[in-house]
């Protein structure tokens, strides 16, 4: 893969909250078709890294490029058409209907004067279908379960027609069957318009299952970057997580799994 094809690239990125340094010397490249997982213990800077890549925070040093454009120069609305983010959890103030929430993913595309078009509705409906949330379409968002809500968030992110999809712990409330479903949907989008997916994982096994490449963070630095087999091994886990764990090979797939 040569540099020309990079979807995302971070060069020498450093970030501090005020005086507190959080991320140091981050260098990262993401190529088309990749599903990247960001893993690491609490406080290692995972969420901060995601916020930097999604444009919420600005680094003190270094450069973040999306499709070779400096992220700080991209107007917010344009950025919204490029990336969409599935949050870990968020509190929705008022009891909007599920279909209204998903529809909000179209906001970056809706012209104030002309209003929404039929395709906006179509895309929203498709997104709900894919995530199997269509049956909840008319329910209030405060009335559905945590798992259903996560699927709705994903639907909204999909409705936003992103080129880069970012997620933060997207499966924590999902039942096993939905975990499979969603991962399948996410990987399918990589065959369509979505160029790459980046997700933060707490669950190492899920990360290993989903991602093509893992970034292991420790104290704000990239400890190791590579395939799941390369990253999740006894040495790295012990060093970064400071705990013992047994790493075994998955019975069917060539990926490591961690058991306690």
């Amino acid at each position, binding site marked *: 893969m040569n540099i020309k094809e990079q979807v995302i690239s971070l060069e020498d990125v450093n970030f501090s909250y005020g005086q507190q340094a959080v991320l140091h010397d981050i260098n990262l490249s993401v190529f088309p078709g990749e599903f990247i997982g960001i893993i690491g213990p609490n406080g290692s800077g995972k969420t901060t890294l995601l916020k930097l890549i999604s444009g919420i925070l600005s680094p003190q040093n270094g450069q973040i490029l999306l499709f070779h454009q400096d992220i700080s120069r991209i107007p917010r609305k344009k950025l919204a058409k490029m990336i969409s983010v599935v949050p870990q959890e968020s*509190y929705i103030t008022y009891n*909007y209907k599920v279909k209204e929430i998903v529809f909000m993913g179209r*906001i970056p595309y809706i012209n104030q004067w002309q209003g929404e078009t*039929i395709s906006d509705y179509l895309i929203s409906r498709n997104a709900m279908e894919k995530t199997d949330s269509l049956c909840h379409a008319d329910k209030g968002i405060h009335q559905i379960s945590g798992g259903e809500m996560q699927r709705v968030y994903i639907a909204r992110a999909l409705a936003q027609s992103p080129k880069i999809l970012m997620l933060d712990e997207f499966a924590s409330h999902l039942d096993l069957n939905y975990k499979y479903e969603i991962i399948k949907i996410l990987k399918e989008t990589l065959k369509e318009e979505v160029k790459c997916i980046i997700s933060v994982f707490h669950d190492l096994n899920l990360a290993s299952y989903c991602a093509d490449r893992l970034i292991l963070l420790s104290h704000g630095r990239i400890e190791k970057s590579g395939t799941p087999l390369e990253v999740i091994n006894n040495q790295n886990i012990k060093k970064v997580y400071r705990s013992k764990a047994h790493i075994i090979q998955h019975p069917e797939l060539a990926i490591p799994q961690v058991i306690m």
Partner: protein
Amino acid sequence: MKYSSKQSKNNLYGYPNWRTKAFFVLSFGFLSILIIGFIGLNFGTISIQPQKIFSILWHHKTDDSLGLIIWELRIPRLIMAMLTGMTLAGVGGAFQGILRNPLADPYILGVSAGAALGACSSIALQYVTGLYLMHILPVFALLGAFLSILLVYLFSRKKNHLPMTDLLLAGVAVNFFFSALITILLAVSSRELHSMVFWLMGDLSTANWQKISLIILPVFLGSFLLIFSSLELNAMALGEEEALHLGIQTEKLRLKIFLIGSVMIAIVVSFTGLIGFVGLVIPHIARLVVGPDHRIMLPVSALIGAAFLIFCDTMARTIIAPTEIPIGAITAIIGAPLFIHLLKRRSETNEY
């Protein structure tokens, strides 16, 4: 799920045609206001028959005392109530959206305290100087309101950012501070105390056509601007970060809503005093009726607010006629139980 390819005007892939919905709802709202307004015209100290009222309206008669009462006393008052209700409920809804706080009301960001201080100062000044300053009172109130807007903005601004918590806190702080000043002013005034307290409780009796002409443009212009931000306000409900991800410039939006809303409130409050509960409760009623989508909810909130205030004003000047109850007391008496009822409903059904 069955994929329905039916694309009727009312059903776009499961989404209602909200434009049609909005049209009907708003027409119904306008009509209701006209009807409530006409009913309100029938009430007052002097009883006038509906037919007489109708003929006075139709022929625009102002030559006799009844015509004078209708055209110069009751109608300006009703229109003022309508405009005030619109503003309070509309801005209340917008603030509840931008601050992501269902308990927000239009006064939360400090405007009202400033206006109140200005008004009470002008009343006190009249006694001290012996000058007649009644027509200057709205100017004083407006200046006070702008002062508090400026202070809230300065206190909450951080290097080109306008963080939400800071905005809220600054508003609360300014409210407290100005209220303290008002309390001192009330304590040292004896004769003018009655006037001040009456103004603080809301007073629509000074409405006249001139004041209406001053208010009407800012109110409608401001309302349109707020309604235009509906989509962005919807996005804000998802969360600050989520809204940013959807391309909303949240800080600019906050500043915009804060300034437009505060200026509208400042202008209205300068003429009518402080009328509470409308901005807090009516948006919730609107959400119950048409849902939280700001594109419909804000106009509906404004309409319900207008109708509600017309109703309250009619009650205020009828219940113990010939004396008037301050309208702020009526809105509180009706608004508080209503709010409690809404709260109970909300917790029971987890609705809206």
